[in-house]
């Protein structure tokens, strides 16, 4: 049985926002021994982009949103799962292309796909579920 580190945070918007997810990650990293800087930076950026997109697009009625973020760190990979209670299927994660250089928005989903190795979306029991996986690099 390989060792793994699993942490989950629940948040509701408002007052929760992307800073809640940042704080969750800041508490996680000291426990996740040996994660390289590039993995840490990539995971943090991908998860914050996903959180921002979920909060902006899934909360279509402005009534707030309940989300659950789970991270699992193993020797091989870092898995991220985000579950929310928002509108289904509002976000297309696959095939997102980087916009023109002067665009002021639209980079989030393309960034996510550039930062992780695997992106999946599903609906289960009335929840949107996104799963991101980044294979760990070796070395520091």
């Amino acid at each position, binding site marked *: 049985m390989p060792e793994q580190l699993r942490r989950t945070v629940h948040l509701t918007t408002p007052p929760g926002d992307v800073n809640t997810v940042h704080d969750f990650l800041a508490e996680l990293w000291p426990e996740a021994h040996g994660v390289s800087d590039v993995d840490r930076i990539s995971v943090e950026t991908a998860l914050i982009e996903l959180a921002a997109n979920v909060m902006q697009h899934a909360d279509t009625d402005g009534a707030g949103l309940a989300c659950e973020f789970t991270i699992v760190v193993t020797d091989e990979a870092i898995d991220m799962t985000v579950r929310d209670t928002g509108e289904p299927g509002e976000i297309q994660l696959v095939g997102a292309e980087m916009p023109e250089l002067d665009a*002021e928005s639209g980079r989030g989903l393309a960034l996510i796909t550039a930062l992780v190795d695997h992106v999946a979306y599903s609906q289960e029991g009335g929840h949107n579920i996104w799963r991101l996986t980044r294979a760990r690099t070796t070395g520091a």
Partner: protein
Amino acid sequence: MEDGPGGVVVLKPEGRLNMVAAPAVREAVASIVEGGRTKIAVDLRAVEFIDSSGLGALISGLKTARQAGGDLRIAGANDQVRLVLSLTNLERVLTPYDTVENAYGDA
């Protein structure tokens, strides 16, 4: 915000430049340009993280400054900021300089 060399206005955001913080940066640049200053340097030494919202604010500021005949340049970016600039190809329009002084070395 403070005065830098050669008439450059230096903006110093701090912490996380995400969807919560980005609007303030966008508004700060617009306010500087409305006040008649158009050469802006964004000192990112105290910024620990940027996301696409933060990048959008910098691009907005760049466009605002250039439309007024000036420019917006960035300095002091950490590894995370440099990675995000690279993956989005934005380093082509937002070259990360080491220091504010170097950003306007031609000024």
